[in-house]
């Protein structure tokens, strides 16, 4: 009958060849697991060719077999500590299933059965040398580029309040000018004195602003510069006539 002994707290378990232990066997960092059994062929004790303790990781299917040291009498023994186990078993989250395989040549009936679950209790303070995972060709993790955050504007309401304040400055300015006595009463007089020059001069000042507006919205520099040159020349020529008319008014004491 197979016997199992956990020597640190010296606990014994009796294994059954037909059913697995209901409780899993725990193997700590300093523990060693000793499995003793006697192999029989029929009723007679006999030495088999193959006597393995096979551990299987239930998640990955990784297997590792440990070979029983079998005597002539059929008495077999295997010792197991955490040092003997590959690192995959030590880091496995689930208990590792342990089965015993006993078989030999000829017509003897082979035996394979799960005998217990091995629960590996690893001391987390003991560092474990896990080799780097070898390269295997498979689909890799997707990568999606993380875009830099775009420029942000302050809340529209704040913008609108300040824009309104700026726009509100214009009526305030006009109001102040009016209280200081600003007016345009001499338009008729000026147009009467030099009608073409005044119309062209003031028109060219407005046209220059229009050119700036077109430059802002749609024109390029090469459209803007000739137009500005034409309007500027008009302003220069008409301006000299218009401003002499203004000078005449000033000398006449009308400004």
């Amino acid at each position: 009958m197979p016997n199992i002994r956990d020597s640190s707290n010296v606990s014994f378990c009796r294994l059954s060849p037909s059913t697995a232990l209901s409780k899993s066997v725990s193997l700590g960092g300093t523990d060693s697991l000793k499995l003793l059994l006697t192999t029989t062929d029929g009723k007679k004790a006999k030495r088999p060719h193959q006597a393995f303790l096979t551990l299987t990781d239930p998640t990955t299917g990784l297997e590792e077999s440990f070979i029983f040291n079998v005597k002539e009498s059929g008495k077999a023994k295997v010792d197991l500590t955490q040092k003997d186990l590959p690192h995959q078993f030590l880091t496995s989250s689930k208990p590792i299933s342990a089965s015993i395989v006993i078989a030999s040549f000829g017509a003897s009936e082979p035996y394979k059965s799960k005998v217990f679950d091995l629960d590996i209790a690893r001391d987390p303070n003991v560092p474990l040398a896990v080799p780097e995972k070898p390269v295997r060709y498979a689909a890799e993790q997707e990568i999606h580029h993380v875009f830099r955050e775009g420029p942000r504007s302050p809340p529209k309401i704040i913008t609108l309040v300040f824009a309104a304040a700026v726009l509100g400055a214009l009526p305030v300015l006009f109001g102040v000018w009016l209280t200081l006595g600003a007016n345009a009463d001499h338009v008729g007089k000026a147009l009467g004195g030099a009608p073409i020059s005044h119309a062209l001069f003031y028109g060219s000042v407005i046209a220059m602003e229009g050119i700036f507006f077109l430059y802002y919205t749609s024109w390029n520099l090469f459209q803007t510069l000739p137009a500005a040159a034409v309007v500027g020349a008009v302003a220069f020529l008409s301006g000299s006539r218009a401003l002499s008319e203004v000078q005449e008014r000033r000398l006449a004491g009308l400004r």
Partner: protein
Amino acid sequence: MRGLFSFLLFALLGAVQAASYTGSRLLVVLEDESEREKYSVLLEDLTARGYHTTIESPKSESLSLFKHGERGYDHVILLPAKSKGLGPALTANNFLDFLKKEGNVIVALSSEYATPTAVQSLLLELDIHIPSDKGALVVDHFNYDSASASEKHDVLLLPYPAALKPDLKNYFGGDGFIAFPRAVGQTLGNESPLTAPILRAPSTAYSYNPKDEADVVEDPFAVGTQLNLVSALQARNSARLTVVGSAESLQNKWFAEKATLAGKAVKTENRDFAKKLTAWTFKETGVLKVGKFVHYLDDGVSKRINTSAAIPEHNPTIYRIKNDVHFAVEISEYSYDHLTPFVPAPSDAVQLEFSMLSPFHRLNLTPISHTANATLFGVSFKTPDQHGIFNFYINYRRPFLTNIEEKRQVTVRHFAHDEWPRSWQISAAWVWIAGIGVTVAGWLAFVAVWLYSAPTMERSGKKTQ
């Protein structure tokens, strides 16, 4: 007459190409001419599939894997030989050079003969390990043929292998049992991604040497599923090498043999398995071919990705950052004698990398449409906000499939000065735009007032003083 001639030529070419994607010249290295009879069905099957077989003895003077510096054959089957050496034409280096020239090799081992040193060092070079002692073989007391090996248990009867991993296609699957008499087991090194097991031994199997006097196995070469009966290597250039543990399994007598597994009568399917093995090794299956490789700017309506089967490969060389780009690639898989649409395994995906030194995007491609012999895979994405020289890069490497490595270089430029949003589209600029408007209106009013203002009473009084 001429039409008939060219038709015949095409028919001939078709027959030549029917065998393998890479070529049909096959060299079978067989020492003993009398052994040829044992493999006659395998060789006839290969000839029927279009291979031009040359059978040479390793001792032959004229034997050479190369001709004028190029490979003289496309494929080699190396059958076990009695003599320990394979001669100067078949050294490990010659085989490696043959693999470098994209030749494919099947190495059949046998436990009856010692493995030649050239083969041993070749396999060692490829990180495939075999027992060093002559006669070591794989036994399994659970899955053996009780008709022919009731005492020794050294004729293994195994089902066809399942897919190695769920994300790999299975080129060796089937129904039934394969016999592996007196196989030499192999183990694979853990480091290389190029080697892969085709058929693993069952978990109760182990390798031992019957010449050992001990009646208990004490230090076996390998046990259980760590032991392979058939292993494969696919090099970076997609050259393939298959190690068959049991040359006997390729012999006529096991091709459709009656066997008994645990009291049940089964018929061995070795002939079909040998076909699958040779077909894979000699690139009749698992060969991928890239057709069109298209990328284009998504300009909204004119080109839709699902109609791009009709779009020729007019790939732009420049994109802007944050452009919407469509990408599509056609991939076919060669299957025995024709190209079929490539369908990856369910949990696998062909991936596109958009990379400058390292990938900025790595995206799974989805199949968009199928043609008669290709699948069109595609994906759309936005170019990253980083200018530079980028690659559309597909690097598809999977065990059992030939490697795909394709790239197209494009420039990703910055925004041009007139591609930025205009200032009125930016709400934060509205205050400044209003300021300019107010300045313009104020300036025009100021000019008018300066030009046309009439003096008020007090002012004029003051001025006249």
